[in-house]
């Protein structure tokens, strides 16, 4: 059984949303969730 060990990174969207948008589109063949949340 493979474990889902995962190094969590927080990508900062400083110059626009491109990193998130690009990740979203790169996974276009998948079912995806997008959550917009306040951290507190």
């Amino acid at each position, binding site marked *: 059984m493979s474990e*889902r*060990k*995962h190094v*969590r*990174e*927080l*990508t*900062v*969207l*400083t110059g*626009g*949303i491109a*990193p*998130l*948008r690009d*990740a*979203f*589109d790169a*996974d*276009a*063949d*998948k*079912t*995806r*969730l*997008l*959550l*917009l*949340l*306040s*951290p*507190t």
Partner: protein
Amino acid sequence: MCRQGASAIQSEVLEQIDDSSLRAYIAWVPILPDDKHSEAVESMTRIPDARAAHFWDEQRALPELLNPVLSLPEGWPAWDVYLAYPPGATWAQAPPAPAFWHHQLGDEPKAPKLDAPAFAEQLRSLLADQSRDGR
């Protein structure tokens, strides 16, 4: 509310759906006065699933971009929202409309308040459609 929603998504959706083709993008947005990058780093731990990627939207661009997509009242930033997209949906020029969504906002949005088990059931249907389509 958002932290509770995040935990609910982790425990009642992601942990219940063991499908490697599912992905989750969590955008942490400074909406409330105490919202800081450090709080986002801590809140990330509420969704530790390996299929999840976390982002810090320090300029609060995403809530404004999603407002018209979700048909929210003008001036309402889209936050505390949980959106699901089928395969094939692409962002490119503008955020696509989700297949379905839940929220923890007021009574205005024309979508259900977050019900994590119901969200999981809808997501299972979406994933089943994906399997049937051979994706």
